[in-house]
């Protein structure tokens, strides 16, 4: 979760408030849209070594769901 927080922070193009970053945080809360979420996917792949398809992550809305997906994929 902490790793994901730091990746999200680096991916954001505008200042985002991550003080309440947690499982219920949505991708919209952290300022990601359909384009910038691609950078998040790329950074997850580079940093954590797990490949995630865009359609998989777009189906999820919260950080908790994304975290579970990464765990399921063996992260």
């Amino acid at each position, binding site marked *: 979760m902490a790793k994901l927080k730091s990746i999200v922070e680096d991916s954001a*193009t505008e200042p985002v408030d991550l003080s309440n970053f947690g499982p219920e945080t949505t991708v919209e809360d952290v300022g990601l849209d359909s*384009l910038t979420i691609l950078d998040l996917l790329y950074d997850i792949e580079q940093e954590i070594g797990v490949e995630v398809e865009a359609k998989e992550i777009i189906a999820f809305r919260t950080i908790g769901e994304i975290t579970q997906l990464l765990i399921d994929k063996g992260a």
Partner: protein
Amino acid sequence: MGIASAIGVGKDAIWKHLISGNTGIGPLTAFDTTDFKIKIGAEAPRDIVKEKLAILNRRPTDHALDLTMVAAHEALVQADLIGEAPPYEDQDMSVVFGTGKGLTQSLQTAFESFFEKGPRGARPTTVPRCMYNAISAGLSIQFKLTGTNYMVVSACTSATNAIGVAYRMIRDGYADTVLTGGADAFFEPFFFGVWNNIPALSKIEDPTKACRPFAADREGTVLGEGAGVLILESYEKAIARGHKSVGEILGYGESSDARHITSPNPDGQAKAMQMALDGAGLTPDSISFINSHGTATKGNDSCESQSIRTVMGDATDQIPVSANKSYFGHTLGASGGLEAIATLLSLKHQTLPPNLNLETPDPECNVNLVGSEPVSIKQGPAMKNSFGFGGGNGVLILGLSD
């Protein structure tokens, strides 16, 4: 108008330094210059830029884009077209903007990642981050400007060409308001490195002495970064909303040397200068001063002097010639924007800043050069020259508003 440069952020800050003769050139700090022949440049203050970006709820992304946003914010607020802080409403304004080198910080990052990791090193947003029109598009999105948005790319003439295009759009009735000017920021190892091995850059190590426009002992230019933004508005619209503008564009000329990719040509330059004068319906004796391209390269300054004498004829000796690049550095595609603003400030104050490092004028630069003290000027419009690699020439005639 709005400006972010090595001698300050904001028009009041830059005028103070211009009139005091304070250069913005210093040792480069943006990256490690150990292996570079040239170790100086004119850097814009990143801390101030970061503070100003926070007003727009932005964090630094690409330095060229960041400088543009800060300068555009100042220009739009001063023109009473936006409030200090977002959110902003849609408005029918176009963006026609200049750059020579584009989004170099983003490109440098992309190059490094690609050459380290191969195609897998390319972040998905590399394309929209690195495209030249990320600047005009970024302005449109940030400030909700729904007219057209595109870039003009013509090396050191970019901003002046962009201003000229914007002027014509308004004059010919295609737009009421256009945000224009130029930006360049390229203190990145690759983009600065490619300049290091060509003779256009000064080898003088003392930053205060390195850039010597029109001097006999000039050795080349010094690079700089910055953004200069002008908001052009039709006279009718300005009157209708009760806004008093700073100045006006009276004429614009442009040409291509069609001779050499880097060497300037006096015929091409003179053609653009004459076209600008003719467009404004002016004769040389009505020009109060010339804000020169004045790069401090061997090639430019003598050629430009020759072009000035060709066009101005007998009036040449009465027209003071000013050069700003010893303050801002040569900001390439931004230079016409920064220097157009300096031209308007000079008109407003009826004073020209000193030409730095001009102890010994070059006899081959036989024009009326401003010396080491500020000079008072008569009332009347000014000429602003910009010339670029590629042989493109752009010339503006600028005046104060009535």
